[in-house]
């Protein structure tokens, strides 16, 4: 009984991580993929906590949830502006 709760937490995080990764790679909507990747970074931070690595959780929280999310969303907004396709070689 004493071990079941951490085990449940670990397996829940692992399953959710794999599911989010699969959805990120298989969805057709670009914005949805980016948003799922932000949530993926958030859950990675929660996984580092369980591996006795609070320093990694801190780095992942600052970078994965904050910086990468803003960068990717900015790129998606840039791609929404339509441009005339040029000739391809």
């Amino acid at each position, binding site marked *: 009984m004493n071990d079941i709760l951490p085990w449940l937490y670990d397996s829940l995080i692992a399953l959710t991580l794999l599911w989010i990764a699969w959805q990120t790679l*298989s969805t057709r909507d670009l914005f949805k993929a980016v948003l799922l*990747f932000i949530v993926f970074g958030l859950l990675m931070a929660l996984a580092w906590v369980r591996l006795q690595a609070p320093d990694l959780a801190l780095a992942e929280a600052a970078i994965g949830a904050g910086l990468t999310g803003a960068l990717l969303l900015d790129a998606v907004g840039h791609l929404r502006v339509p441009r005339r396709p040029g000739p391809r070689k």
Partner: protein
Amino acid sequence: MTGGLFYAITGVLLFCLGLYGFIQHAHLLRRILAFNIMGSGCFLVLVGLAQRGGQVDPVPHALVLTGIVVAVSATAFALILMRQLYVESGHCTLPGEDEES
């Protein structure tokens, strides 16, 4: 099964998923996402295997901390390259690959 080994196996599966996405998609932003997922899988394997024997090995932790920072800078650089390609050519894929998928 110890928790570290469990997370290492999750990391291997994540790496395989990311590799599949990297091969399958032609869109460059999706490739960047798949690349990041591959990197996260690698980090999980490293830190998960550093836990064996009840003693935490600090060297993989330092490596992964550096790896996270390098991954975000590489992502930023790749995004800039992709945006420049989009401005120049209007496409988000490399030449020679089909547009949609």
